[in-house]
């Protein structure tokens, strides 16, 4: 029997860039420190607030799923620094190609909370206009978006623009052919794209060691793409690494690859049960490296985050959560006939025929009870 051998891959290894250690003490990293020299305490408090807010969003959405208001939710618990640090290094016209887990990124980009939730409620396939927010819709096919980001960046070269695109991906995605192909194309055409890989150690139940026997960041140089391995729970280090990649992209340096080493503290989605495949020891180990606790400790160590400021951040996060809940539970269901909308940009004889037929069919129920509802009624 063929048995894949999986490295544990669980503990941070040497060569991971860091600016704030897990206990909140500053780390001197000569390569990264200059990239964030301008970040003052006020900005760091803002990053802290961002992380608290998206964790609160995550908590509220998980609760809404349990209450039957959302069909599904992919938690981002534990990955707040990776999401905040990366998005805060970008400009508004840099185009983002996310996975389904970058809901914190979408919120910080400006997408409407109810819109974000509409996808997870089952009301819509997308919650925002990609052109308005320069952010594609959540990608569910693993790794597919890396090609879109690369193609977009090729288009930036053709247009002579100095913006960039960023593809978010996970450790599981790095096994996909599309990710390999996108790195080949990005290198061949020197496309200004950032591959931002959140190695959260788990692809549903499969440990990262099953995807890669050596650190993921080590793959990129084989394509001719410079890479950096960074502590994904350190918001300042992630910001610095993303700025490094962005500067390369903007100055004609082509693609870069970042491996943000983090941990998925929650389930893959609300439909998953991680107790079936991982132990509590690992979870406790990573809880000690929490991204929010460490920046809080760092700020408190500098006397910059008092109880009042902390309470204010929490209050604002609660207000966001309340808005999210309100938007979610008051969201109207889509109109039945909208099922036919936007399949094509113009008329399509076959689909138009089906639409007409279904409209007549629905109209036929006026004033009568359908067999389906009778059956459901008899069962309830």
């Amino acid at each position: 029997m063929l048995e894949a051998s999986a490295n544990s891959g669980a503990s941070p290894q040497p060569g991971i860039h860091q600016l704030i250690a897990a206990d909140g003490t500053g780390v001197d990293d000569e390569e990264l420190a200059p990239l964030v020299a301008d970040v003052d305490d006020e900005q760091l408090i803002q990053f802290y607030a961002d992380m608290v807010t998206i964790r609160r969003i995550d908590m509220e959405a998980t609760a809404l799923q349990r209450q039957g208001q959302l069909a599904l939710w992919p938690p981002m618990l534990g990955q707040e620094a990776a999401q905040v640090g990366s998005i805060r290094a970008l400009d508004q016209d840099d185009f983002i190609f996310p996975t389904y887990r970058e809901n914190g990124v979408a919120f910080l980009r400006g997408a409407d909370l109810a819109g974000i939730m509409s996808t997870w409620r089952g009301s819509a396939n997308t919650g925002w206009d990609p052109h308005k927010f320069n952010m594609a819709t959540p990608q569910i096919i693993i790794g597919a978006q890396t090609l879109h980001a690369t193609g977009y960046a090729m288009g930036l070269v053709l247009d002579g623009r100095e913006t960039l695109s960023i593809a978010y991906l996970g450790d599981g995605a790095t096994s996909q052919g599309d990710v390999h192909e996108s790195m080949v194309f990005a290198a061949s055409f020197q496309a200004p794209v950032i591959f931002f890989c959140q190695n959260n150690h788990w692809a549903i139940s499969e440990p990262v060691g099953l995807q890669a026997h050596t650190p993921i960041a080590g793959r990129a140089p084989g394509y001719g793409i410079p890479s950096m391995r960074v502590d994904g729970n350190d918001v300042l280090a992630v910001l610095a690494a993303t700025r490094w990649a962005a500067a390369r992209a903007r100055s004609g340096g082509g693609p870069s690859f970042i491996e943000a080493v983090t941990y998925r503290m929650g389930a893959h989605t609300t439909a998953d049960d991680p107790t079936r495949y991982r132990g509590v020891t690992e979870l406790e180990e990573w809880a000690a490296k929490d991204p929010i606790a460490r920046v809080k400790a760092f700020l408190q160590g500098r006397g910059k985050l008092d109880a009042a400021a902390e309470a204010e951040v929490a209050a604002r996060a609660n207000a966001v959560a309340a808005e999210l809940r309100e938007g979610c539970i008051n969201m109207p269901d889509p109109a039945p006939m909208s099922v036919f909308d936007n399949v094509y940009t113009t008329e399509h004889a076959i689909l138009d025929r089906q639409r007409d037929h279904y409209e007549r069919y629905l109209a036929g129920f006026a004033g009568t009870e359908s067999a389906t509802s009778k059956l459901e009624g008899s069962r309830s």
Partner: protein
Amino acid sequence: MSSLTLTQAINAGLRKSMEEDPKVVLMGEDIGTLGGVFRVTDGLMKDFGSHRVIDTPLAESAIIGTAVGLAYRGFRPVCEIQFDGFIYPGFDQIVSQVAKLHMRTHGQVRMPLTIRVPFGGGIGSPEHHSESPEAYFVHTSGLRVISASNPQDAYTMLRQAIACDDPVLFFEPKRRYHTKGEVDLDADLSRAPAMGASRIVSAGTDVTLVTYGPLVSTALDAAKAAADDGISLEVIDLRSLSPIDYGPLEESVRRTGRLVITHEASETLGLGAEISAAVTERCFNYLEAAPVRVTGFDIPYPPSKLEKHHLPDLDRMLDGVDRVLGRPNSLSGLEG
């Protein structure tokens, strides 16, 4: 009017589209310096530059997937898949992304890709070079699928496909690449037949014979041969496979009462199955006999020494006509 081969007509169509719209870019393997393995893109890199005629690394998923990214930026990519049998590595990007993005984004993101695919057999090639995968794409909502059978249609329909805001699969009958025909290069697109319109290419009264792409000229040969036998065939070139334009087909079957559908692709759930079902639903009371399918067999494409047994030819089409007319045929004595 110019006398052009089908290859030259497609080349002229690409050139015209690129001249008219700077957002049109070509992508594919060997399409630049070489001009494509069939020379369809001959000279275009020289005239438009390597930024608009892009030789890509050998990765079909990436050709389609990066074209999606380019479309996000407002480009109109025209992707060449070198051979029909090479399209499958790009299948996921086509069906999961290209076909769905317009609906996924509530119409906010358009995917005006054209995917050119030389298809079909009859050229004596090794495996994976002679396939007819069109039904997979016809089955996929969100795509339009067309196939031209002659140089004029190839020129016009390709330009329409590139101008179309929906993604279009453009199947080129590669064994007819060297067929010559008169092409009006200055024809006004707005006055040309619609991209989705089918067309009666030979009028007749006894049997409706419908096909597309490479078999249109074989069907026309069949009409001539049948005429010698006193049978009048009406030949319809579908041109558009998705959506199918049933108007002319229904009108024809109401007159003839008999339908034969022929294509190179295998029988089960091929276009013939769909057309047979749809025409039966729409014209049941007019049919004198059950529709007959004359298709490739349900086999992987055979070695080229055997392909003549797999591909419907003139005689198999005529046998299908005999079957639908109840004349002595290959199944005589076996069916009612």
